[in-house]
Every structure is written in C-alpha cells, then in structure tokens.
C-alpha cells in the first residue's frame, strides 16, 4: 500500500514541476549558503589551529622580558649558567613583496626545525640546514606564501633562498636567527627564550633570572588569532544563518502550497482507508527524499561558493587581523554534516506547520484559505510582543555585558525581534490604509492586501532582513571606505617614498636630497618587545607635514611642539583601546623612552600597536634603527624626474621608489578586495529573498481565485485585476523596505560602534548614504515587481471560465 500511496503523492510533483523545482532550489540555495559559510569558517579555523599548534610546539615554556628588552647578552649569560634555552627573535618583516611574520630560531639549539626533509626548492638541492645557516640565509615558508616570492628574494645583502614546507603556517617564515636579526634590524634584542627542558624550575634556579626576565605562560607569549578573528566568523555565520532562514521561507511557502493543493488527494486517500499515521509517515518520507536531494545539490553549490569566497576571506583576515588562511579548500566532515543536518532540520521546520494543520483540520471539511488566514492574523499581536521582548533582551545584553558578545546578542535580538514585529506593523499600516481609503475598489485593495499578509508575511520578513542587512553592512563598508580614504590622504602626504638598499646609502641619499632642496622625512622605527606584544615606535622629524596632516583623534595643545622636544609620545588608537590608555597616561616602556601620551591617532588596518616620538628620542634609545625609508616632499610634477635621477645616481630599483598615488591605489585595491566577500553575500541574500517573494506570490496565486472571482464578476476587468496585483505586491515591498530602513541603520550603528570597535580596535564614524538606500528600495521594488509579474500575467491571461468555476466549485 505504501508504494501506491507514495506514487500518488509523488504524482503531484510530476504535474507541478515548477513547484518541485522551486522547493528544491530554495532548499538547495539555503543549504548552499549555509554550507559555504561553514566551509569557509572550518577552513579558517583549521588554519588557525595549525598555526597555533605550530607555535605551541615551537614554544613550549619560555622566558620573556618585562620592563626592559630581552638582550642577546641575557641569553648568553643564562646559557653560561647552564640554562637549557633556545633564543627566538620574532617580528614583522616589511619588504617590497609581502609583509611577513618572521620567526628567527637558532637551529643549533632549537628542538624544532620545521620540515627537516622539505621538498627541494626551486633553488636546487641545497641541504636545509646549510641553506638556513650559510649566509645570506634561507627562509622556510608554506608553499602558498612562497608563491609570492618565487625562487628567492634579493634582500640587498644577498639572495635569500626559499625553502617550501607545509609544516610552516601560511604567512609566516621561519629563518635562522642571524637572518631574522638582519631583516628586522634588531641585532641586540630577542623576543623570548624557549625552555628546552620540561623540568620544574626551583627557587634556586629562578633567582638567577635578571629582574626584567620572567617565566612566561603560553597565553602571554602569543596573541591568539582565534579570539581576534572570532567576530569575523560570527559575522559570516550570521550571514549564513540569515541566508538559510531566508531560504527556509521559500521552502515553507512551497510546502504549504503543496499541502494545500493536495488536500483533495489526502481526503481521497483517507477515504480509501489509508491510516492517518501512515499518510503522515509517507509524507515525511517524501519530504526526507526531497530534503536529501536538495541538500546534496546545495552542498555541491556550497562547495563552489566557498572556493569562490575563500581568497577574499583570507585577504580580509590577513589585512584586518594579520591572520593567515590557506586558500585551498579541503572537504571537512563537519561542514558537510552540518549542511545535511540543516537541510533536514529546515525541511522539518518548514513543513511542521503544514503537518500540524493537516493533523488538526477535519479531513472532510475544507475551510477557506481566508478563514485560516484570519486565524493566523490573530497571532500577530503575540508575535510582535515576542519581538519586543527579544529587542529588550538584546538591548539589556548590550548594556550589561557589552563587548563583542553583547554586541552580537543585541544584533540577534534586533534582527529577529524586528522580523517578528513586521507582520503586526504591516497589518496595522494596511488597516490604516483601508480605513483611509475612499471608494470600494480602493478599500478592497487594502483589505485584500491584508488578507494576503498571512501567506506573504514570512517572505516579507525575509525581504526585510535581507534589506536591513544590506543597508547595515553597506553603510558600514561605505563608511569604512570613506574614512579609510580620508585617512590615507592625511597619512600619506609625502609625494614620493624611497627605500634605500642599506643605512649607508640611506644617509647619502638624505644628504643628497636635502642638497637638492627637497624636504626629507626619514621613516625610522624600532620594535620593542613588550609583554603585551611587539610595539613599533617611530621617530619623526618636526615637519609641517605632520603638523598639518597627521590623522589625530585627540591631542594635547601644541602636541607637535611637545613631541619635538621629546616630552612624550603619540599612540595609535588600537594601542590606546587595547591597553585602555588616555591622554596624559603613562605608557610603560623601558628607561629612556618618553612615556607620557600626548595624542592618539587613527591607524586603520594595522593589527599591532604603534607609537610615535621625536626622531631624536628614537635615536637616543635605538641608535641602530634602520635608516632606509624616506618620504620626500616636492611638487608633484617633479616626481617623475626625481625618480629617474635617483635610479641613476643611486642605482635604486624602480620598486624602491613608490609614488604616493600608487600606494593609495594599492591600498584601496586591498581594501576593496577585503569587502568582496561581504558584497557577494549581500547580493546572494537579497537574491534569495526575492526568490522567496516570488515563490510566495506563486503559491498564493491559486488560493486567491476565490477572492478574485467575485471582484471580477462585479465588473473589474482581468487587466485591472492584474495591475492591482502588481500594485499590491509593490505596496507590500515598499512598506517592508520602509520598515527595513531604520532597522538597517540601527544595524550599521551596532556594527560600526559596537562590533568593529571590539573586533578591530578602532571606531569608525558613521556616514549616511541615502542614494544607496534609494537604490536598494528600488531594487526590492523591482524584485517585487518581477515576482508579481508571472502571477499577474496568469491572471491577465486567465480564461473567464476559471473565474466562473469559483462559484460552482465548493471552494
């Protein structure tokens, strides 16, 4: 019997291929977006875990410096006291290809030399250790990182060999400590000393330590990329979930329609003696089969979406957090399983209501759609109350907990609460419209819209969420872009940036340039190893360039005079936020450095803390600070000539001479690449939402004949009816878009002010972009128009006898 019933059930889909297609596409899209986001997250997390475990095994327990820097002399002294230690010098290496994190190890004492038998590099079969130790040295890096460097890198003092090894995380290079000290310009300092013995250190041993060196726990020794990037992944997950929810609205619409239209079939089957329970069971099997097929398609699509998104994601993570993710996507059980589970769960959720109503409604009675619709409408008040409660809960979480978690709880409450309140608001607006309407047809239009609301409300909720997300995220990205571009204008004020081959050439270059009457701004810095992480301190000349342009967020009066006198320093916003510093506070630094904070400046896109003092103070404390990079102020039109002269006079390579405009365009390109993912997800979500409206309208269409028949019979032509249908659809979409606007703005505020500040360490000003909103509203109207077009076309072409049938049929 089951087979017969199943074939009867499936015969419906054979006759309604469009519905089947929409159902499968909806579910597949929902699954695909969810799975794609999960895959991207899983990939990124796996990369972090790899980096973390790499660092963990490489580090074990270590000694780190507190008040004064760790010096090579400290290391040697402890070694000669019998400590089993291996030195590590770590830092960010700025070069002309790609800035890299460098870990300098001493292969002679280190337990960990990554990839001891690496595949041979393009440079030939040079043995690993010799390649590391033999001057000028080699760099071990992940093949993906190595791809940027080719077979080697000309460091100015020799050709550095690249050794590829999967054992090294992406974005990191492991080098011999002598090379690290050259590349980082840090001859005397060390980052930490790894303890090679796992024996407990007794008091007698610990008192040998100098006052500024102490045993560091793992947590202190490194910054966990996981916690920084968590917000980004939460963001992605939220997007994925949103898309899934939107997709579910489609599925729900389709299933409801299929149940509705098969009511007669169910009744017949029941009359033929099919037990109610087995009917439900077989329906569940049917849904399960559909869910499985959709999930499989969804996973395949999701896989490709993830592959497409991953490069953008890894660029985002690298540029915002300095965290590195491998580009190659690997199949992981967790996201495949989660995709399958979500698909089944979603189908179950979406069909639950239909199953429930099938269970509850007497089989021999087929009440009108309208009656059930009004029943549902009664619940809108309750939904709105629940929505309000969610909003309140989110706000309370934000106010009491604050932070990233509070921010996300608030966002969740806001979005879900607003969605729940939407039908109630629409209901009230339509009610108001109806009471204000003059004329029978106008009144009917409003009332009919209200009657349609139950069938459309889920799709409209989806549309509102998608629109709000678009507005919110769009505002955030555009604000970011505007701020970033302004900031670059201020920050990159020199017309030409030059990098000399070495310090001697730097000094010669400076003298020559000044002799030519150009203003030269040396870019010299020194990296201090502090317990909270590395801090790069720049020393600047007293120059109008800084006084006029530097992007200061807050500062003392005459701040540049005080800086020039060496009375204090400026800190970046990230550093200030991370260490909770205010103007006038004292930044704990080794003796000799000025500590008083005279100003805070914005430093977007830099995950590490930074500070500025006078050039004189820098050189007092770090006389060896490399003197290779310069900004040069000169009339823009003279730049090309100067480039030519410098290339000839000083034998500088073209890539060592960078024009300001080029830096800006490169930075903007990185920035735009960064937000490609967001843009893609925005578009996909909106697409899915439009599809939801379309399927809802199509599914409503057949149920609406009983309402349209009488109106037609009273003399309203099919043409007018079709136009009114389109108009109604536009009205609903417009109302929804209007309500989505404030929601989107609150969302963007939360993103900019709460989430960003927590996640990135900087606060962005919010800018309004009314034209973007208008574009979105028009886009949603267009979507509603297109969605309404097919049902309207159907109505327009409908044979009158179909409308007449309304009166003859029992419905």
């Amino acid at each position, binding site marked *: 019997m089951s087979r017969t019933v199943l074939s009867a059930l499936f015969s419906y889909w054979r006759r309604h291929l469009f519905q089947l297609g929409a159902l499968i596409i909806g579910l597949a899209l929902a699954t695909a977006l969810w799975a794609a986001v999960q895959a991207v997250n899983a990939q990124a997390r796996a990369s972090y875990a790899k980096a973390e475990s790499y660092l963990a095994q490489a580090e074990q327990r270590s000694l780190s410096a507190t008040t004064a820097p760790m010096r*090579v002399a400290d*290391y040697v002294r402890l*070694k000669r006291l019998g400590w089993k230690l291996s030195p590590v010098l770590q830092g960010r290496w700025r070069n002309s290809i790609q800035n890299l994190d460098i870990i300098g190890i*001493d292969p*002679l004492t280190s337990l960990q030399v990554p990839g001891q038998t690496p595949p041979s590099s393009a440079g030939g079969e040079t043995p690993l*250790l*010799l390649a590391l130790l033999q*001057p000028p040295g080699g760099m071990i890096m992940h093949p993906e990182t190595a791809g940027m460097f080719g077979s080697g890198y000309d460091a100015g003092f020799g050709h550095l060999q690249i050794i590829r090894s999967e054992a090294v995380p992406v974005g990191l290079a492991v080098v011999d400590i*002598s090379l690290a000290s050259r590349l980082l310009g840090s001859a005397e300092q060390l980052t930490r000393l790894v303890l090679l013995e796992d024996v407990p250190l007794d008091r007698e041993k610990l008192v040998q330590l100098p006052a500024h060196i102490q045993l560091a726990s793992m947590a202190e020794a490194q910054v966990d990329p996981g916690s920084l990037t968590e917000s980004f992944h939460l963001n992605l997950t939220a997007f994925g979930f949103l898309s899934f929810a939107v997709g579910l609205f489609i599925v729900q619409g389709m299933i409801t329609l299929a149940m509705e239209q098969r009511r007669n079939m169910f009744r017949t089957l029941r009359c033929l003696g099919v037990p109610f329970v087995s009917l439900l069971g077989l329906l569940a099997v049917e849904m399960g089969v559909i869910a499985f097929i959709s999930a499989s398609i969804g996973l395949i699509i999701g896989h490709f979406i993830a592959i497409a998104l991953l490069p953008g994601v890894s660029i985002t993570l690298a540029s915002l957090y300095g965290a590195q993710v491998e580009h190659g996507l690997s199949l992981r059980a967790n996201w495949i399983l989660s995709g399958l589970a979500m698909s089944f769960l979603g189908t179950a959720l979406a069909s639950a209501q239909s199953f429930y109503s099938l269970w509850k409604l007497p089989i021999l009675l087929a009440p009108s759609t309208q009656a059930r619709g009004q029943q549902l409408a009664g619940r809108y008040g309750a939904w709105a109350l629940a929505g309000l409660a969610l909003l309140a809960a989110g706000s309370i979480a934000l106010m009491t907990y604050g932070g990233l978690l509070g921010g996300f709880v608030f966002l969740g409450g806001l979005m879900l609460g607003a969605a729940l309140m939407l039908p109630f608001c629409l209901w009230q607006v339509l009610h108001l419209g109806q009471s204000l309407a003059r004329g029978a047809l106008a009144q009917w239009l409003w009332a009919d819209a209200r009657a349609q609301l139950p069938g459309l409300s889920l799709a409209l909720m989806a549309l509102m969420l998608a629109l709000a997300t678009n507005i919110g995220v769009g505002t955030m990205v555009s604000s970011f872009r505007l701020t970033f571009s302004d900031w670059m204008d201020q920050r990159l004020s020199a017309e030409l940036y030059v990098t000399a081959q070495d310090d001697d050439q730097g000094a010669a270059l400076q003298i020559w340039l000044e002799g030519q009457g150009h203003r030269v701004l040396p870019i010299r810095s020194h990296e201090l190893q502090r317990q909270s992480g590395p801090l790069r301190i720049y020393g600047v000349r007293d120059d109008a360039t800084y006084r006029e342009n530097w992007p200061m967020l807050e500062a003392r009066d005459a701040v540049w005079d005080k800086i020039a006198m060496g009375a204090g320093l400026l800190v970046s916003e990230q550093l200030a936020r991370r260490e909770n510093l205010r103007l006038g506070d004292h930044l704990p630094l080794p003796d000799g450095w000025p500590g008083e904070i005279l100003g805070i400046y914005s430093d977007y896109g830099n995950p590490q803390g930074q500070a500025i003092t006078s050039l004189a103070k820098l050189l007092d404390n770090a006389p060896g600070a490399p003197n290779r990079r310069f900004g040069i102020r000169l009339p823009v039109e003279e730049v090309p000539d100067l480039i030519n002269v410098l290339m000839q006079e000083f034998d500088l390579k073209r890539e060592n001479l960078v024009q300001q405009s080029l830096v800006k365009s490169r930075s903007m390109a990185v920035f735009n690449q960064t937000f490609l993912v967001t843009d893609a997800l925005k578009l996909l979500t909106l697409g899915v939402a439009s599809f939801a409206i379309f399927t809802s309208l199509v599914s409503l269409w057949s149920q609406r004949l009983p309402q349209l028949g009488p109106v037609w019979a009273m003399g309203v032509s099919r043409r007018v009816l079709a136009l009114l249908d389109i108009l109604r659809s536009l009205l609903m979409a417009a109302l929804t878009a209007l309500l989505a606007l404030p929601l989107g703005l609150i969302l963007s505020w939360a993103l900019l002010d709460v989430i960003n500040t927590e996640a990135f360490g900087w606060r962005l000003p919010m800018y309004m972009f009314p034209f973007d909103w208008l574009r979105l509203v028009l886009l949603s109207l267009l979507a509603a128009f297109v969605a309404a077009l097919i049902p309207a076309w159907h109505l327009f072409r409908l044979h009158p006898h179909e409308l007449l049938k309304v009166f003859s049929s029992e419905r």
Partner: protein
Amino acid sequence: MSVRSLLLCCILGCAAPAFGQGFAGLGTTADGFATPQLGQVLSFPQDHGPHPDFRIEWWYLTANLEAADGTEYGVQWTLFRSALAPGEAEGWSSPQIWMGHAGLTSETQHFSAERLARGGIGQAGVTAAPFEAWIDDWSMRGDRGLQQLALSAQGDGFSYQLVAKAEGDLVLQGQNGYSVKSPDGQASYYYSQPEYRIKGTVTLPSGPVAVSGDGWLDREWSSQPLSEDQSGWDWFSLRFDTGDKLMGFVLRSKDGVEDFSSGTWISATGEVTPLRSGAFLAQPIAQAEVAGREVPIKWEVRLPGRDVFVVVEALNPQSWMDVAFAYWEGPVTVSGSHTGKGYLEMTGYE
C-alpha cells in the same frame, strides 16, 4: 688525535640526518679557507686560541682516572669549531659554529653529552691568553698557557670538575707542528700536551667520587678535505707503564684494501718520533654489539720497530657517544709486551 676529529666532521654528514647536511659541506672543499703551510712556526700563546680562517679546529682532552678504591674511569672534554665561512664577525652573523662533547666512562656505565652553539655572541669560544675554552656552562680554563687547566662539564646523570697540571713540554706533531694527513699532501697544524697529571671529582648518579690520573690534550686546525673513499678510523693513544707513549691511527678505506696508518712514538724522556706510514698495525680480535651494530672492542696492536705487541681492550665495551654524530670513545687497558692504559676512538661503524 689529528685525523679522527677531522674525519669526525666528515662523518657528521652520514651519522646525523638533521645536522649532517649542515656540516657535510665542511669535508668537501677548502674554498676561501686558509690552508696549513709547511715551515710556518707555531707561536704561543696565540695559537692556543681559535683560527677562524681555517675550516675546523678542536681542543680535545681525554683522561684515564682512578678512584682511591682502584675503580677506573675515563673522561673526555672536547670543543670543536666549524666555520661556515672564513673569518669571524660580531653577533649572530658570525659564521663560526661550536660543538662540545663530554663523556664519563666506568667499567659498567657510560655517559655522554653534547652542546651546540654559535660564535659571535659569547655563548661559546676560546681565548688564548688567559686561556679559556667554553661552551654554555662547560669550560676548560687555564692560568699560564696550557700548563694548568680547570675542566668542568655536565650532562644527564653525570658531571665532573677536574684540575690538570702539565708535566713536560708541548709536543709539536709532524714537522714542527705541520702534520701531513695523506699521501696527497693534505695536512693540518697539530700539537699536543700528552703529560697531564689530573685530580678532581667525577659525579655519577651514585654520588661524587674523588679521582686522579693522567690526561692528554690535542690541538689541531685545518681546512682540507679528507679522502672520500675512507669509511672511518680507529685511533689509539696509549700510555705504557714504561713511560713511553704511542699515538697511532688507521684510516679504513671503503674497499678494505688500502688502509692508511700513521702515528707518533713519544719516549719516556720526551723524545718525539713520527712513525712512517704503515708502521703502526692494528687488528680487531673481538667484537661486541654496541648501539645496534658490531664494534671491535679488543685489538691486537703492533709496532714491530719498537717491539710493541700488545692487546688493547675496552674498559667498557659500551662506551658509545650518543650525540648527534655518534661514535665510540672510551678508556682502554693495555697488556702484552707492554702494559698500560689509554684511549680508543672508533668511528664509521654503521
């Protein structure tokens, strides 16, 4: 002790996969490095210090010691210098690499330890006057030249602190310190102090033991490669009860046909006679399984010109130096035409 250490650096390549590659280059060519010149007069104390323009160099001390109850011990303290490039530089960019080996052997126990360090930062090095050789917390410190030395080293399960006093002059090996290593003319600078009276304490897991005995120091530096067809060597330093001393070695060729042997006879009165090639003969007469391989631990040694026909037997057959570049090194006892004690080193037993 000339050849063994030279070869050791060669053997590094085969014995240790991790570091071997790094040192493998050392035994191949002498590019850019200085080479020993015949007629160059060694001058002290400068030549007690390092010669960074040469590729390899070592300070090598072995000692046969005895406790009050007659228990015998052997001690080894060695510092090797290997240069990746000629010359010295300050800081991390120094091309010099230092390697220390320490060993302590009794009849039933053998301990070994190793230290690696780089030059330029002060973690390891040698100064000529006052003399000091050190790596990490191991050191060999002298007051007047090499006349008196204070030695210390420690590793897992053992340590020692010894004082050595020289009784006699330095011995310049070969032709006034120019020691030819092969028929092809490869050579090294080489001198020794074979007459140390040693006192001090060795510490084993069971506790400290006061000891005394005799020691032998070798100093050698060179840059030149060894023959590629040699698989290892057996090196003997024997101190006979008559007061005569014999240093001899056999370089085993890979094909087992053309072994190369040489050595030095140092009479009780201090007269030094280099042995002609092939005069020194050594034949294994018993093997033992050591660290998973067969190693000869009993030898018949002959030097017919001096009427020496002796059996040399390991005090502890398991004297395996379990370091990155493992080899056998330990005290031996001598019986037969002459009696006495000494040290044996064997490398290249795979």
